[in-house]
């Protein structure tokens, strides 16, 4: 019962702060969007905990709220962004956007509606626990090669960023 309430609270707050990231009626400042993105990610970590993915919840908070958002804020403060607030939103563009996105959501909801309901059937209770030990086991045994390739990807990203942020792009 508490899980149910927590699910609804967390998903409502996730969606609310998600909406405030993209369409904040009060402020159009990118810093506000970044702050609501932090909130979205924190509430999503709550949803991860409800799904018993404890390790991923911790990683989500550490990597997204800790690293990615700090990077965003650094860049926002590095670039002096005053212009965004003055430009107006086009009503017609927003209307068409809502229409298109609502139809995409309709498609997704219809697809989700075709899967058999899992909540009422108590036969297959989910038992999976996303603890660190089984994840680490899978990561270092079954998925060792992708894991190593990922480290190369991070290295490539680092080299690329250093190259891009040099003074003259040559």
């Amino acid at each position, binding site marked *: 019962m508490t899980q*149910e309430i927590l699910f609804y609270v967390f*998903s409502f707050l*996730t*969606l609310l702060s*998600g909406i405030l*990231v*993209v*369409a904040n009626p009060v402020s159009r400042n*990118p810093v506000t*969007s*970044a702050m609501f993105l932090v909130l*979205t990610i924190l509430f*999503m970590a709550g*949803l*991860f905990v*409800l*799904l018993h*993915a404890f*390790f*991923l919840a911790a*990683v*989500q908070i550490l*990597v997204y709220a800790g690293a*990615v958002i700090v*990077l*965003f804020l650094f*860049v926002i403060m590095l*670039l002096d*962004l005053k212009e965004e607030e003055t*430009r107006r*939103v086009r009503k017609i563009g*927003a209307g068409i*956007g809502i229409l*298109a*996105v609502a139809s*995409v*959501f309709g498609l*997704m*909801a219809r697809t*989700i509606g075709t899967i058999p309901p*899992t*909540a009422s059937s*108590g036969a297959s209770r*989910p*038992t999976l626990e*996303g603890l660190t030990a*089984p*994840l680490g086991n*899978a990561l270092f045994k079954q*998925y060792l090669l*992708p894991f190593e390739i*990922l480290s190369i*990807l*991070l290295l490539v*990203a*680092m080299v*690329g*960023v250093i190259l*891009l942020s040099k003074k003259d*792009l040559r």
Partner: protein
Amino acid sequence: MNGVGLEHYLIVSAALFCIGLFGVVTRRSVLVIYMSLELMLNAANLALVAMSRFNGNLDGQIMVFFTITVAAAEVSVGLALIVALYRKRQSTHVEDLTTMKL
């Protein structure tokens, strides 16, 4: 007892994805578009974790782990691109960035 099933999580994930999509389509600042992209990635993560939980298979969570890492790399490269672009054009507004040549 626990009335929350897979479909509830998938609906939340789809809604979050659509919010991100709406941001990408309508906002005009490159940085906010980028944040909306992060929202969409997070929505996909939520769907993967929910699938993994309700199918009793850990592979979905491994996938999310990889996605988070790739997203971190992607954010660093993308923000470096935005900074480089801003140096050349003094703007992060997509309507000012319509040509690819610097």
